[in-house]
């Protein structure tokens, strides 16, 4: 077993884990943070997206030992007010992909410079959604960007 120290949702976390356990399983089954979902276990669907040192990362592909000393943020750390634009735009239906979608979407919202070189559709392509056809998600990201920066990018 491995003594694992890292920062989880802004607070220090310490626990004993199997060193080859996946970060996803540590979050879900050891820590009860079940907002992070297991969609495919092979880094294709993005349902398990968390932020690792600020970057969206598939938690199913990260062995727990790799997060030692690092910063992990999960959907549980997100202020509910920030979710409102996604509710209004129809970004969630069944909800299984949704926490992962939100983590990538808010990374875009916090890093709007990404949109100088990429479209929202390109940046969201690592999160598979089977319900919405993505339009509700894209509109949610646009609305969240507009809320934060006053006007949608490109409209200036």
């Amino acid at each position, binding site marked *: 077993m491995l003594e694992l120290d890292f920062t989880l949702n802004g607070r220090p976390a310490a626990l004993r884990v199997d060193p080859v356990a996946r970060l996803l399983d540590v979050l879900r089954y050891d820590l009860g943070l079940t907002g992070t*979902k297991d969609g495919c276990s092979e880094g294709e669907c993005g349902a398990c997206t968390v932020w690792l040192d600020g970057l969206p990362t598939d938690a199913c592909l990260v062995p727990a030992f790799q997060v030692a000393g690092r910063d992990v943020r999960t959907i549980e750390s997100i202020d*509910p007010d920030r979710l409102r634009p996604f*509710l209004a735009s129809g970004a*969630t239906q069944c909800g299984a992909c949704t926490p992962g979608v939100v983590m990538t979407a808010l990374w875009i919202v916090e890093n709007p410079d990404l949109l100088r070189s990429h479209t929202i559709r*390109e940046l969201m392509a690592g999160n598979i959604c089977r319900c919405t056809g993505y*339009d509700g998600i894209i509109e949610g990201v646009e609305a969240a960007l507009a809320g934060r920066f006053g006007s949608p990018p490109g409209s200036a």
Partner: protein
Amino acid sequence: MERLEGLAKLSGAERYVDDLAVEGAWWGMTVRSPAPRGRIREVRFDPAVDWSGFVVVDHRDVPGANEVLLIEPDQPVLAADYVRHVHEPVVLLAHPSRSALRRAVRGVEVVVDPDPAYLDVSISPRSDQVQRGDDNVLKRLRIEKGDVEAALDAAWRVVEGEYRTGAQEHVYIETQGMLAWEEGGVLFVKGSLQCPFYVHKAAVRALAREADRVRIVHAPTGGGFGGKEEYPSVIALHAALLALKAGRPVKVVYDRGEDMAATTKRHPSIVRHRTGVDSDGRLVAQDIDVVLDGGAYVTLSPVVLSRGIIHAAGPYQCDHVRIVGRAILTNSPPHGAFRGFGAPQTHFANERHMDVVADAIGMDPIELRRRNLIVDGGETATGQRIRDGVDRVGILDRAVELSGWREKEVEHRRLARSDPWLRRGLGLASFHHGAGFTGGGEVALASRLDVAGLPDGRIEVRSANIEMGQGTLTIFTQLAAERLGVDPDAVVIAEADTGRVPNSGPTVASRTAMVVGGLVEAACDDLRAELGLGSEVRGDDLRRALLAWHDDHPGADLVGRAEYAPPPNVRWDEATYQGDAYAAFGWATYVAEVEVDLRTFGVRVIDFVALQDVGTLLHETLARGQVQGGVAQGVGWALMEECHWEDGAMTNAQLTNYIIPTSDDLPPIRVHFRETPWAGGPRGAKGLGELPIDGPAPAVVNAVARALGVEPREIPLTAERLMDLVDDAAASRPRSA
């Protein structure tokens, strides 16, 4: 109002079955058949594993009939001595550790003496492959109207075509799972499912329990699309058998690979058309042959075939129609319910064929459809007279106009002249989808629903219909709140628990908002009648009356009840397959614009217009989301979603190489509605959930056909298939051209 459970989903607070932490629960896993067909000679347990810590279940542990009861009792809960498909469940294991369990599953070997498997419905079975009747046909159905042969003989032109579609995996993002436990002599099974009472019926049968000693409870369901219509009964029974033997809660949750390999998929199809037209381009005869690969057990295939053939002639008027359908038993894992339920397959064939007919007679495909769409007063292949006031030609014309068809055609010709590699094209599909169960199905279901007035003044809707993303909770809340004039916050939707709610039927067939939503309104009215109030009493007055009733009747249950009553003048003859197949149809025309790169043969959908009339919209955001999601799923089926098979097993059962559309594979999907109210539905609404999966595949493939001048007949139209088509077309062209 906003989606009721939307914030819970966005914040990750919603608890799906795998999210439920249960004290003392063990995990369950399944040992499956390695062979597509054969006799089980032996089940070997690796002596290197210490089996004392495991609970092991096989067919001998099934206390009742070893049947997953649905339409026919042919599918065993666990194979006893014979297997009929790869991945058929044979042995179940439970253990506290998931990783120990994974290793143990690999330590069980099912030894099968193989018999010849039948895996390709395009070839008749050899005698040693026959497993049902004398030809493996598990269901035959026939629709016949007029005299097709005479009409074909008299036709100006006859155009033939054969069309094929492949299996499609649902890819709900939450994989299937069930949790079972016993409490006070009652077996509880909670999990991801669409039809609590289907599971209940199967459990009562296989577990030989009284109905009130089994309770099936819906857990928040992360997508279904039909994939959680019948298969959850299998997993529920497995979890229950393990829990009963272990004497503790057991959870069975499939991982993605197991879910994709072992559970149902959309039926592969082969549809042949022989169509007679007159010199004005009017359809005078439609002769249609539909074949579905049903897989190894009957499951829902007869009903999928039924819906498939009823939609096979499309939304067109034709006096002479013959549709023959066969669902065929093979040794693939059973194919099953998937959004659209047979209609996407037959609509693909019909709408692709309409373009082939248009080409053959030198007519514009829009004009061919315009001349043949059913006008009010006309009738369908089953002789159902359509009088719903929907302007089907108007929908076609408006969809074409919204797509910018005429201007884009000019641009596309210009592009073909100027660009060596890029080609663009437009394609369309006109189609319809019947809402609710077919024929007398809704009458047979006799769905019941209760609306209770609670002692605290709130209203509780008690139904077996579930939320899987499509918006049931929101729609039911909205309908009840509006009907009674109360705030949506004062409405609660009861958990779909077979021990607590009446059987309002399965959450399938585009029936929930239209049929069950109607029951919500009727039960609200009945609640008011129970209180002795007139229909004008609403809101606070109603609430006061409700509280006063409870003061007078302490501890009593105040319930308004509703039971399904068919709309007037609906008649259906199951023997002849003639009559009113559905109480209502949604109607649509979709237009796709594609760009093909001749270097890679990659196809991109670059614009998509979806115009439909599904009656009055109950919730615009939810309705739009249903259409956009259905279009995305249809585009995937058309272009990229391909199941690869080897000896009856899916070899690409993972999202790495079973490819579904991402945000970057799709354009914005432009959704438009016309709202012709339908008197039979709540506030004028019709069913909507399945219609959007019927049109995208033919629209997209027709667009590719027009972009390149090829005639694709099979989906998915992958780059490899398209390259072959283009090569074949080039080879068949005269060299001088």
